[in-house]
């Protein structure tokens, strides 16, 4: 038992070290993520104008359970999760294609675990900057957030949302063991997050038939559900969403482990 606990502790420490290194590495590219933040400002401004026109500037009106203020903050929350995620699928694909994966596999680290740690480290810093920038735009345009425990609940669920995004992207990146080009699959994933994930429009505002479809897919658990809890907080809803996310993380985690095991088993790297 002690040996098992020591092993687990060691693995956690390694993961934390990777997160720390990724965080430092990202800090070196401040200009890059500040540019991203500028782009987020523009997108949020445009979307704010779009929904402002749709609501005719009426802050009291509720459509699909959302007021204008809630919609704008919802968009900040979904965009922050979307734009925070580093392109892990592309990195995995490159490593498999050019053989760099061989170097990673010789290290006493889980390959997928390494990428997850790196994803969280990079993503955390970007997420904070994007959330602060987006929050500033939302605050100035529609007023401060008044969501009670919504904000801390969102922060917790956003970590799970980022984990889900990582697993979805990693599953696709690992397909590079079989197919040379995974960008097409990643593109499809991005578009699924964009539409049925609720990036630009909350699922509640979609037609009922599509809402039923979305309920069976993991995409809304990555973006829509954390953002919805953020702006329309409820204790029971939060618990429900958290369980839903954990269930999807478990299912996708198993899928990623399966793909990796099968793929790594057939890997041949020549030269070096």
């Amino acid at each position, binding site marked *: 038992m002690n040996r098992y606990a020591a092993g687990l502790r060691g693995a956690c420490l390694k993961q934390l070290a990777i997160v720390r290194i990724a965080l430092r590495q990202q800090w070196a590219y401040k200009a890059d993520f500040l540019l991203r933040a500028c*782009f987020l400002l523009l997108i949020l401004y445009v979307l704010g*104008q779009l929904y*402002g026109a*749709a609501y005719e500037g009426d802050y009291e009106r509720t459509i699909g359970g959302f007021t204008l203020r809630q919609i704008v903050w919802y968009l900040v929350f979904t965009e922050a999760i979307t734009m925070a995620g580093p392109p892990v699928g592309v990195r995995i694909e490159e490593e498999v294609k050019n053989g760099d994966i061989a170097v990673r596999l010789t290290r006493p680290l889980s390959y997928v675990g390494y990428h997850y740690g790196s994803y969280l480290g990079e993503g955390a810093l970007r997420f904070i900057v994007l959330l602060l920038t987006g929050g500033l735009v939302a605050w100035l345009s529609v007023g401060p957030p008044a969501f009670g425990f919504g904000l801390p609940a969102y922060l917790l669920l956003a970590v799970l949302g980022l984990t889900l995004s990582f697993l979805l992207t990693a599953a696709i990146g690992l397909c590079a063991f079989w197919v040379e080009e995974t960008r*097409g699959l990643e593109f499809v994933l991005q*578009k699924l997050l*964009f*539409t049925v994930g609720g990036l630009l429009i909350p699922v509640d505002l979609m037609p009922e038939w599509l809402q039923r479809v979305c309920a069976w897919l993991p995409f809304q658990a990555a973006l829509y559900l954390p953002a919805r809890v953020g702006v329309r907080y409820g204790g029971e809803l939060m618990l429900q969403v958290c369980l839903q996310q954990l269930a999807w993380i478990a299912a996708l985690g198993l899928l990623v482990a399966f793909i990796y095991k099968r793929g790594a088993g057939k890997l041949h790297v020549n030269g070096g």
Partner: protein
Amino acid sequence: MSTGGKRIGGIVRFLAANWKINLAAALEYRLSFFLLAGMMFLNNLIWLFFWYLFFERFPVVSGWRLEDVMLLWSVSTGGFGWVSVLFGNFNRVALIVSSGQLDVYLAQPKPVLLNVLTSRMSVTGAGDLIFGLVVFIAVGDLTLRGCALFACALLISGALFVGVMVIAGSLAFWLGNAEGIAGQVFGSFISLTIYPTGIFRGAAKFILFTVVPAGFIGYMPIGLMREFDPWFAAAAAGSAVLFAAGGMLMFRAGLGQYTSGNAIAMRN
């Protein structure tokens, strides 16, 4: 034939040869060509799906309906598409200048900017162009007048895309590494051309019709195609000429500042 006529004839033959080679190179990998173009088509289609969802919930927004936004997309993607196919380097000027790749073009006895712009064809741009045409056939006015106005709209929007990006890219002559800025201008300009202009008010609207001329592309379905407004048409055409000429002049001024290292670059 006069010297001027000969020169123009030479440029036309040069452009035709460039485009022919670009097309042949793109079609060398036919499957990849169709996949990339198809992917861009799908990307745009998903955007239209978003707009369908949006207008299902809000049928009229600032006087705009789903059909108007579809027309806007046909103009924006069509305009972007044709310039990407014929002038595929228009959004890579900053990269070409800052990485020293311009040396290759300077050594050739052809107009430098035209040579840079036409030496690449964007395959995804073909998908955009086809998408724009398909959407126009689906929701546009297919009379002779309607088609002529659509052609004008494509011409104006394309010229605006090229003009704005050449201006942004030419900053690299003075700033050095201006790829980040040019990339931001590119992304932002595209983002502003795919939303209806009617949603913007006050200073934002003023900026969109002056400094960042995305408003002209955004308002094209209403001001040019649905209710022909001669003032708007003249302003849009004037703005396209102004930005295209501005881009040319800025590039030419930048050439005087250009220095490079000893990097050996291949033309691509």
